[in-house]
């Protein structure tokens, strides 16, 4: 149980940040795809910039994980088709439902229970991908 407390805490922090930044809002996603505000680009841009800097610093200082291993970001397999096609399908759904997987869960906490329908559909989508995986171009 104890080992899960740190993950629970990180989750709480993540949930608070995404609500307070309004990144969980359908309206903000619409606004982003309309290029009508810098807000979401600012969030993603500073997240990535900060991420790049922290990861470089961490590599430089040879920081180890709490499990004593060297801290590394797992590498994605090479490829193009799955990333582009999968990305486009994801983007269509992201813009329509206004929620990517993180915000989906967080929105439950804000009392928006109709998001459970979106989550159920996302589970179905994941299941259907698993079903068709070997038939799809990757």
């Amino acid at each position, binding site marked *: 149980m104890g080992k899960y407390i740190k993950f629970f805490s990180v989750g709480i922090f993540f*949930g608070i940040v995404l609500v307070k930044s309004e990144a969980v809002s359908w309206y903000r996603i619409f606004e982003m795809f309309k290029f*009508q505000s810098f807000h979401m680009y600012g969030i993603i841009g500073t997240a990535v910039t900060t*991420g790049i800097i922290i990861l470089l610093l961490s590599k430089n200082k040879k920081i180890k994980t709490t499990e004593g291993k060297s801290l590394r970001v797992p590498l994605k397999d090479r490829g193009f088709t799955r990333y582009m096609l999968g990305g486009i399908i994801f983007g269509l759904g992201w813009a329509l439902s206004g929620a*990517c997987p993180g915000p989906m869960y967080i929105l439950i906490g804000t009392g928006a229970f109709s998001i459970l329908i979106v989550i159920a*559909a996302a589970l179905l989508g994941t299941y259907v991908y698993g079903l068709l995986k070997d038939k799809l171009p990757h």
Partner: protein
Amino acid sequence: MDYILQPWPWYVSGPCIAIVMYLLLYFGKTFGMSSNLRTMCAIGGAGKRVAFFNYDWQNHKWNLVVVLGAIVGGFIAHYLLSNPINMDLSEATIKDLSALGFSDVGQSLLPPELFSWDAVFSIKGISILVVGGFLVGFGTRYAGGCTSGHAITGLSSLQLPSLIAVIGFFVGGLIMIHLIFPILF
């Protein structure tokens, strides 16, 4: 305290998200929210029928704990750390959405036109939520990650596959908002 109760500016929120990513890496894991959808399918027994879900999901329980935390965090932020919401959306967005038939734009996190129970119990309303969710679930597994895994973690570690995926996210999003929304609404 007032600073916390106000909506947080992007230059505070973005770096906080990077900290979340780094903490999970520091704990020997990775930041990926969509993996939980696969885990939940596996827990539900999907592995008996589909090999993709036949793996040791016990190793992914930590990520479900992150999800639980995120739900609690959402509750805390929304009910304890927020002034009544009135989002500072751009004028153009409010105007465009009004033209599409949305009212009270930005007065809640989600538009009642899509997420209220009245909307959910209409054919069009529930279709939008189901199709949207399905595409997210299918697309994210096909692409091997979502906003957290590709846009934040993948781009922060300068990985080309993630850049391709993020470009895909935007191509899809732009098609939906600019080409499909005018038909839908």
